[in-house]
């Protein structure tokens, strides 16, 4: 469960979101990713590390090169994140509807 919270924190950062967008298109090496940003290679590598730790990126060795892939399954979990929020409102509105239907028949 802690992992899921980390995922949410991971995508709160704009640079990390930009990295995910890049990798959604195709797998890339850390150097190729860093070339897209003004930040130092070290900074980008830290971002990649965070994204990998929470499962949003997957690492794959291809010969001597390290490639990073985007993990769509993990993104699905983020989509599910708002489900409890939606449920809360759905319950609330179901009650509203029930109360008002009763109100209507009472009148």
């Amino acid at each position, binding site marked *: *469960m802690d992992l899921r*919270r980390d995922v*949410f924190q991971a*995508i*709160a950062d*704009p640079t990390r*979101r930009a990295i995910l967008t890049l990798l959604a298109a195709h797998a890339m090496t850390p150097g190729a990713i860093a070339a897209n940003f003004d930040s130092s290679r070290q900074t980008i590598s830290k971002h990649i590390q965070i994204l990998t730790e929470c499962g949003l990126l997957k690492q794959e060795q291809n010969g001597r090169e390290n490639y990073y892939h985007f993990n769509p399954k993990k993104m699905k979990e983020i989509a599910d*994140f*708002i*489900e*409890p*929020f*939606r*449920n*809360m*409102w*759905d319950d*609330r*509105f*179901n*009650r*509203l*509807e*029930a*109360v*008002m*239907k009763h*109100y*209507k028949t009472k009148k």
Partner: protein
Amino acid sequence: MERKTKVHAEDGKQDILITREFELPVELLFKAYTNPDIITQWMGTKVLKLESRRHGGYEFETADPQGNILFKAHGTIHDLIPGKKIIRTFEMANAGFDAQIEFLEFESLMPGTSKLTIQMIFRSPELRDAQLKLPFAYGINMAHDRLQQIANQLK
């Protein structure tokens, strides 16, 4: 299960869009937001104050049976057009979320059905995400508390 309530929250933005269709005429839907007794029935909170008019305000409070305050919120009503629109602020006391602005739009669909669209705007994307995560975090805590209870019983 039917998904009547839709929530839309785009990444990196600071608002939440909630839409819901009701099997109610728009007048009754609007009444559910402007009548204190009815609000208490569906929101489950006590209405301390409600001035349903332009430049009005409201105050809600929920306490447990022992009288401990669990939830307290207040806001001002910027504008109110009967059967159509409410623009208001909302702030939960001691929650650290700051105030948010809410646009509530009421629409009549077919006879006897209506639609409510709520746009909530927060001070920052971070505060919006925190708000969005709240029921999720609450769910984790509830599950954790239940586990704790079970663990305590086993002791």
